């Protein structure tokens, strides 16, 4: 109704009530059992074909999965990711000529520690999922969120692409040949899948045993994690933090176990919500990577989202009709009110709007498709300094032209004590957020950022709105530094290195 380029059919005036004895629109023989979208009725068989075909078409259209590649499936237990798992099973088991050819592995991240679940509940959930995983006969990894404290700092860097796939010129077939060639060379030299830049990323102190739950979690770990989450005051920031930590854990597992692709189970509805909430959080610059099909920001590990064409309604119907078991695990925002966090608010907004305007989700999806998806060429020498510490996306805080970011800085300065600003010249370059340079422990004040310390180093963001958003206590050097990666905290990318330099309390 309110879309640009909308076509009005005459059918809008003569809309008959949906009848039970409608025929399937595809085969036109069997009776329909369900209706998707506005009026497409499908019978059971045709729906299954349609569902499976969509998955294959999505993978086939964007040719990023090479045959023989190791692909990690990120499963959270929810309907979309379990559906993705079953689709992969379908695709790999088919005798059809176009069988999917890659080596899958499964990862499940247990974040019960952050959402306040007890150990028994977590063990139960893990056991349920393990039975599902064992039925698939794929390798699986159960990773606990507490292990984030033993992640190395290499997880914050983008590795160089193991297979240098050129952007243009080479066809898919040639790229596949190139990939297989590289793999052969690798296998000849060593048994580990290491290559130039990757060796230092793989050699780590984390112990992992394949196919089993990783080293048992002590209550101290859980408490440390809970302290971390308690220090973040708003639910929005907590969800953000959880998402970032999960990404890091998945990335790390993929790197250590030699997976070059990660499949996430984000459905169309969830991606539409993610797009809107990312816009509201200020992450407009990285929208294409956050919600696009492929996410190349980590370089060596590419994240793909094959379920992005499915609405949650279709997934729910499919799971019900074909008995795909999904496990419900309560998260941070379960039973939270509408206004508890930005993500929650966006979710309720989109779902309500969808009931009045049924094309909302697909329109948002189409908008996200038109956004820039090509990643700028990874020039690790020059570009490394311009990446955010946490989300490894290019910084969007340049101050050349007048922008919302600059306006924010000006407002901040004008509302505070006159005469005590940090020499901000309007329209010119601000001091920037390069507080990390020259020592983490100085109380160098930049616009809105204090870095002070005694024993624990606390980073407090004094950004007006997000006051107290990211308070982190870094207790030892190996703890991952958590910041809110949005202006104005970008400049602290070098702080992690500064921490390494000044080991111990300042």
């Amino acid at each position, binding site marked *: 109704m309110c879309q640009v380029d909308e076509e009005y059919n005459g059918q809008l005036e003569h809309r008959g009530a949906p009848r039970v004895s409608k025929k399937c629109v595809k085969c036109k023989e069997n009776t329909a059992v369900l209706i998707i979208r506005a009026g497409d009725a499908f019978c059971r068989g045709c729906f299954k074909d349609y569902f499976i075909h969509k998955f294959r078409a999505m993978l086939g259209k964007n040719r990023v999965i090479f045959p023989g590649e190791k692909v990690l499936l990120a499963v959270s237990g929810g309907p979309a990711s379990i559906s993705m798992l079953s689709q992969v099973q379908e695709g790999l088991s088919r005798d059809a000529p176009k069988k999917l050819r890659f080596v899958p592995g499964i990862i499940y991240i247990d974040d019960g520690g952050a959402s306040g679940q007890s150990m028994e509940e977590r063990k139960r959930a893990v056991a349920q999922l393990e039975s599902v995983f064992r039925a698939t006969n794929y390798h699986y990894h159960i990773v606990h969120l507490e292990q984030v404290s033993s992640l190395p700092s290499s997880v914050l860097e983008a590795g160089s692409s193991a297979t240098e796939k050129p952007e243009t010129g080479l066809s898919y077939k040639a790229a596949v040949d190139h990939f297989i060639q590289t793999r052969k060379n690798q296998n000849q030299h060593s048994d580990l899948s290491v290559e130039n830049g990757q060796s230092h990323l793989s050699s780590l102190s984390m112990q992992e045993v394949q196919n089993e739950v990783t080293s048992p979690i002590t209550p101290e770990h859980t408490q440390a994690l809970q302290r971390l989450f308690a220090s973040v005051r708003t639910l929005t920031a907590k969800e953000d933090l959880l998402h970032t930590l999960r990404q890091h854990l998945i990335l790390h597992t993929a790197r250590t176990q030699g997976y070059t692709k990660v499949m996430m189970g984000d459905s169309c509805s969830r991606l539409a919500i993610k797009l809107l909430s990312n816009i509201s959080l200020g992450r407009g610059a990285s929208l294409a990577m956050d919600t696009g099909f492929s996410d190349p920001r980590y370089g060596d590990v590419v994240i793909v989202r094959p379920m992005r064409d499915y609405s949650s309604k279709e997934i729910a119907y499919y799971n019900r009709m074909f008995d795909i078991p999904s496990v419900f695990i309560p998260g941070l925002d379960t039973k939270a009110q509408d206004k508890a966090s930005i993500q929650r608010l966006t979710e309720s907004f989109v779902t309500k709007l969808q009931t009045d305007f049924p094309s909302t989700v697909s329109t948002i999806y189409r908008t996200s498709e038109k956004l820039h998806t090509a990643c700028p060429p990874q020039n690790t020498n020059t570009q490394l300094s311009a990446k955010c510490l946490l989300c490894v996306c290019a910084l969007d805080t340049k101050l050349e032209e007048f922008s919302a970011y600059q*306006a924010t800085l000006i407002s901040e300065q*004008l509302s505070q004590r006159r005469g005590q600003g940090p020499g901000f010249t309007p329209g010119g370059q601000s001091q920037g957020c390069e507080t990390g340079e020259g020592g983490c422990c100085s109380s160098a004040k930049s616009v809105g950022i204090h870095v002070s310390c005694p024993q624990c180093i606390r980073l407090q963001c004094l950004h007006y709105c997000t006051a107290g958003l990211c308070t982190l206590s870094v207790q030892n050097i190996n703890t991952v530094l958590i910041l809110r990666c949005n202006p104005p905290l970008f400049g602290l990318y070098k702080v992690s290195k500064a921490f390494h330099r000044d080991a111990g309390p300042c």
Partner: protein
Amino acid sequence: MPVLCSSCAEKRAVLKRPKTAHSLCKECFFWAFEEEVHQTIVSAQLFKHGETVGIGASGGKDSTVLAHVMKVLNERYNYGLKLLLLSVDEGITGYRDDSLETVKRNQQQYELPLKIVSYEELYGWTMDAIVKQVGLKNNCTFCGVFRRQALDRGAMMLKVDKICTGHNADDVAETVLMNVLRGDIARLRRCTAISTASEGEGVVPRCKPLKYAYEKEIVLYAYFKKLDYFSTECIYSPNAYRGHARTFLKDLEAVRPSAIMDVIHSGENLSVREGVKMPVQGTCGRCGYISSQALCKSCVLLEGLNRGLPRLGIGKHHRLHEKILSQQPLTQVEERKLKAVNF
């Protein structure tokens, strides 16, 4: 223990700034607000010395505050601008006629010349008559399109170099959200620009000096300065699609006040993929106004109204442009489609 102003630390604070949550006294707030608008104008280089600037004045809080602040800054910082007020009368009884009285009072208070253009004299239709034909749902399209052209025509009559409007941060953020929801990539790219393109004749560039000012702060400013403004909503607005984006934005602001600036920041940093079809600027075949199609939108809408086909102009209609231009009659099927009205 009274809270002191965080800026001068001498006087008691009387308000908490919605944008930064600092507590400020009246004078510091006025100073901060005016300074921010000044910084916006200077850094974005909105005006040149000696230009004639038309202020789009509706009598509402945004345009009243804009007129006041422009006058103050023009004198304080010697912009050297010649200011005048430009107002549009859409013909909405109970709303516009009242707000026009406010504009006339503003004219006397600020001692600025005033020009009023009305839909009746430009197009021959008032909004009330349009709503009777079109219904309650899609009439904002008509009003917005007509008003833009009316502003430009008025500006050309007065020979101004630039028009400035009172769009605030909330408006820009709502526009970004609305364009994402509607899938309008072309507008999404352009809507966060602080001023429109300035090439081409017959086009008067428009800018938004209040782009980074929150609506709440504008209200506070107007209240504390005791400015005279008209504060009722348009009577047709409850059914607009923008209302959804607005409610969402208000909720966002309640959760996190910086969300408004974050949305604008996201909008400014969006990059569109190459190869996406974008509209190309041309001129209208009938009136010569700028347009990306064969006929400009207001000509299409007017044609629809005059022929009794209210849905012409809502939805896809490029194929009909040639027919309209050459005055051919439309077929039965097309006429039937375009007549349907739902209330």
